[in-house]
């Protein structure tokens, strides 16, 4: 799965959660203005990732591809914070420079998933009954390719690579988004203010753009934030399996894949890229959950 269960859980659980969100809001350690310690940490990690993705040179001025065979397999030290790899490339530099590729892949895959999900979700949520029926059946078929299966099928057809693996991850998350958007749209569509807009004589297009989309957008943003982390993890998994980005590109999954041969002797080659995957996935999830809580309690 790709998407986290908080997106796919049954409505019963979501209702239960909504009921208790007020109470839960008071739980946990909170600093000033209702921000928890975990959220501050998550914010810091995301800031680091953004800076690393936009201007990696600010944090790691070295060359991520610059080899130095005399310095190969150095353990972490003051000179090489995360050690060096088999060609003497500095792993800290590579991990920081890898943020751009990994974050871009994660964001693009999520955007593809949500874009497709939006198309199908809106068709099913707004269209006539037969369209809803056929779209829902189509989604059921797509759900029967669970987890990475759809992605693997896509890669069989179009061959491995960064672009195909990104599209593949986006594609396999799309059915989940579509189902969620459909139920969101259905919920909002029944809201009194939509009815009011209809009574006031607004046409379908105006209702869609001015009333429906803005109200679905908030939920969508939260879902997207929650989905980015998982997209990064799955894209990196595909790279690790040799189906995505390939070494020596400084992409986290590819770095892990390259370090796989040296697991037993040089742990730092795989430890640090993996750590950054965990950090970015956890940080985006925490951010998404924080947004979710804010949205519910407001």
């Amino acid at each position, binding site marked *: *799965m790709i998407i986290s*269960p908080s997106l796919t859980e049954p409505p019963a659980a979501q209702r239960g*959660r909504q009921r208790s969100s007020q109470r839960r809001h008071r*739980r946990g350690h909170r600093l000033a203005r209702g921000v928890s310690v975990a959220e501050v940490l998550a914010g810091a990690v995301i800031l680091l990732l953004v800076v690393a993705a936009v201007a990696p040179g600010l944090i790691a001025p070295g060359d991520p591809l610059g080899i130095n065979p005399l310095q190969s397999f150095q353990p972490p030290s003051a000179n090489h914070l995360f050690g060096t790899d088999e060609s003497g490339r500095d792993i800290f530099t590579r991990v920081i420079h890898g943020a751009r590729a990994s974050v871009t892949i994660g964001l693009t895959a999520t955007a593809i998933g949500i874009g497709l999900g939006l198309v199908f979700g809106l068709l099913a949520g707004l269209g006539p009954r037969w369209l809803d029926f056929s779209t829902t059946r189509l989604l059921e078929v797509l759900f029967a390719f669970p987890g990475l299966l759809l992605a693997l099928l896509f*890669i*069989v057809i179009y061959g491995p690579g960064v672009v195909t693996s990104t599209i593949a991850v986006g594609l396999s998350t799309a059915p989940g988004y579509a189902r969620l958007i459909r139920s969101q749209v259905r919920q909002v569509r029944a809201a009194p203010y939509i009815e009011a807009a209809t009574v006031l004589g607004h046409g379908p297009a105006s209702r869609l753009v001015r009333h429906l989309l803005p109200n679905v957008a908030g939920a969508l943003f939260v879902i997207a934030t929650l989905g980015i982390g998982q997209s990064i993890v799955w894209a990196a998994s595909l790279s690790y399996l040799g189906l995505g980005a390939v070494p020596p590109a400084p992409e986290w999954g590819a770095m892990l894949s390259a370090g796989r041969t040296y*697991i*037993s002797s040089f742990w730092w080659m795989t*430890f640090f890229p993996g750590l950054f995957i965990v950090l970015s996935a956890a940080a985006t999830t925490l951010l998404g959950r924080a947004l979710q809580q804010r949205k519910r309690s407001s």
Partner: protein
Amino acid sequence: MTPAAPLLRWLLLRLGGVVFVLWAVSTVTFFAIRLIPGDPAEAIVGGPGSEASADALADARAEYGLDQPLLLQYLRFLGRLASLDLGRSYALHQSVASVIADTLPPTLGLAVVALSVAVVIALAVAAWSVRGGRAASAVASFLEVVAAAVPHFWLAILGIVLFSTALGWLPPVSVPGPSGLILPALTLAVPLAGFLGQVMREALLDAMSSPFALSARARGENENGVFWRHALRHSAIPAIGLAGWAFGSLLSGAVVVETIFARPGLGRSLLQAVQGRDVPLVVGVVIVVALGYMLVTTATDLAERLIDPRLAARAVSR
């Protein structure tokens, strides 16, 4: 009408749905596979670049029926499916059914062990945090998010480095027997436990502060009793609702984990088939996985209806 009649009707509809989805999945897969550039006969004879002779290619095409019109191929494919014949693997030169029969049991075993471990971990953390107050709740929530964010392959590597290389307790590759199962199962279980824990803890927290928990306390039930006898059941419903998702997660995890630990199984065969473009094997695994997914979701829907009759009423309006 007897009370069983709606359930039976629902079940029949569901079975019809299963058959429809299986047909759609195999059709989508069959035609999607035709989009692969290149000659499938080359893949049969030995992959691209093997420079097979024209005769060998023609023989391979004839053997696998690739020289027939597409529609005929499709109909024959459906006919074979109906008689449970999944064709022959290009790369392994044995029937897909026998490959799946060999690789499915180890993967199922791994998944069942991993799922059990995940449920135990998730429950233990949830039980501790629900009664441990605010600090415990915050810690548990943080641990769950981090666990859910850990990629399988990284966890596997850490496990190998720590328990095989440094401590020497467990084998780095999966050997037969329980010691070879520990690391793969734990690797699969930890992220799953993170997801399960998030959902179960929410439900447990709700249940522990619900009116029925209050009334149980008023009857003199202690906190342990409230937790095990009353609240636990309520956390089962959202957890069961996750089953379809967990199935996909375990399968995707198995692809990674079986590859890293060199463990024979369906996931590893699938990856090898994808890498080698072994079309019949990919199609076969896809169909078997889709069937498994449909069975799991049907079973869980049934279980949910039996546990919580309110859902049956709701499903009508959905």
